[in-house]
């Protein structure tokens, strides 16, 4: 069988299908469960410098083609999170700690304190005031946050980018200039839903982020733009729920993919995607490397 193991973004991964940030990543036990189910790596829930309870409910609404969420970055702060990371690392797969802050210094403070296999910088959550995409939509801020974490940490630094911008490539270039080991694209698209009985926005936070199949074409295009221009690898995320989606994302240039919303179907999704990918490579007599960025090489 063709190998699925890769080296991407400074990590050795047994397969390129990872658990995305914010999904079943609050506890070490659930990170381990994803690893046991076949994830090649796991990204934690984003952690910040102080405990947060997140937004009032509803925090999630199922809409056509996906999910709308506004969790609001609930987390116990990095001071209470090392034990969850350590428990997750006992699974044997790399644990990537997702972190957020409101300034380069706050990001660096968290990165200095936590031990993980890599960091993923949340510069893209679309529904938390003063955090996420509120910083991450400015290339100079992406550059300074990435630089600050690079200086503070001795593990690979991945930067998760927001699609809520006119030009995601600028953000990717900024991360690359500051020494990121990879960029991760995309986070959710800023969105909302309104209860037509009463006119209330359904999410407690009024607006949130759209994930799932509805955003996959946006993610594929973003990965294509980034991967064709950057030197550093791109991790593709956004609406992947089948091996076909993973193949498409890798053809757009992704070195690895992350799965989030599709976990609704259950933990079996990791094995299903990895197996489908492996069968595809075998049928086509291709390697992951052959597949990566194939779409750029197809020209009229």
């Amino acid at each position, binding site marked *: 069988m063709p190998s699925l193991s890769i080296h991407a973004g400074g990590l050795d991964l047994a397969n390129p299908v990872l658990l995305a940030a914010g*999904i*079943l990543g*609050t506890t070490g036990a659930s990170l381990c469960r994803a690893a046991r189910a076949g994830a090649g790596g796991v990204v934690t829930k984003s952690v910040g410098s102080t405990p947060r309870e*997140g937004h009032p*409910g509803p*925090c999630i*609404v199922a809409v056509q083609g996906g999910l709308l969420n506004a969790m609001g970055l*609930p987390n116990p702060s990095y001071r209470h999170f090392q034990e969850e990371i350590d428990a997750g690392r006992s699974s044997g797969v790399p644990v990537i700690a997702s972190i957020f802050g409101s300034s380069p210094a706050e990001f660096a403070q968290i990165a200095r304190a936590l031990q993980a296999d890599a960091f993923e910088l949340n510069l893209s959550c679309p529904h938390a005031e003063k955090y996420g995409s509120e910083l991450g939509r400015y290339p100079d801020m992406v550059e300074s946050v990435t630089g600050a974490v690079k200086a503070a940490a001795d593990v690979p630094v991945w930067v998760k980018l927001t699609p809520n911008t006119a030009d995601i490539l600028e953000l990717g270039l900024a991360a690359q200039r500051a020494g990121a080991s990879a960029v991760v694209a995309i986070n959710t698209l800023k969105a909302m839903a309104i209860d037509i*009985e009463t006119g209330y926005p359904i999410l407690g936070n009024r607006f949130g982020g759209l994930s799932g199949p509805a955003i996959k074409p946006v993610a594929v295009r973003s990965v294509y733009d980034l991967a064709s221009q950057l030197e550093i690898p791109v991790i593709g995320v956004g609406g992947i729920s089948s091996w076909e989606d993973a193949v498409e994302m890798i053809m757009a240039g992704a070195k690895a993919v992350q799965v989030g919303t599709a*976990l609704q179907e259950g933990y079996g999704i990791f094995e299903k995607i990895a197996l489908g990918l492996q069968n595809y490579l075998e049928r086509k007599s291709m390697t992951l490397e052959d597949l990566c960025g194939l779409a750029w090489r197809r020209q009229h």
Partner: protein
Amino acid sequence: MRPINSIIEEVRSEARLIRTFRLDRDLSPRPGQYLMLWIRGVDEIPMSFSGPDCITVQSVGQATEALFEMGAGSSVGLRGPLGNGFTLKGDKILLIGGGVGSAPLAFLGERARASGLAVTSLLGFRSKEDIIFQERFEALGEVIITTDDGSYGIAGRASAGLKEFSLFDYDQIYLCGPEMMMWDVISRTREHATKTQACINRYFKCAAGICGSCCLDPDGTRVCLEGPVITADRLLESEFGRYRRGPTGEKGPCRG
């Protein structure tokens, strides 16, 4: 699924700070399942069914206080039924309830009785004024009541009533109440753990099995989706009764 709009048809006071809200629709829940109740402009909270079209709520915080301001004719949003619910097994069952946790057991007991099962109930309350659904349970079969302050029935916690029964006589035991009350029961009845189904509570945020806020250590069971009914043999091997994570995800003590 978007929240469904529902009108509250009737509000009944059951005890101090406990009310039953009957909704304008039967969501065909299984006993032990829950719904997410959206009190618009306030919050969305999980609530167990106390009947096919009703929930029984104890006022404990901001969202339930806002609900208690509502009367017949008010509207709420609903998501559900959610979770696994209880599974009826055998011919002879024992219900063990604590406080407002007795509510889903009354619903379960009525379903069991309708299917011809013999139902016995052990119910614990703080005091006489807190007793709910006594008539509903008495219509099902034998009932033993305990009160913490001794104002009615046997004095003590629900577990004080255990000596009234031989648990070997029952094919299945169903448990719902405050965590420490349930822990008290399951830790004293370990030999019956595999036939004890407990409806437990964790902090539910998404109620869709993806956010991870309700996961149980050490196996990561998603209580909102794979629970809230979990057999006691699995609870005995878990964090249950020792700690629980709150809204931030930080571990804290179990209360109640």
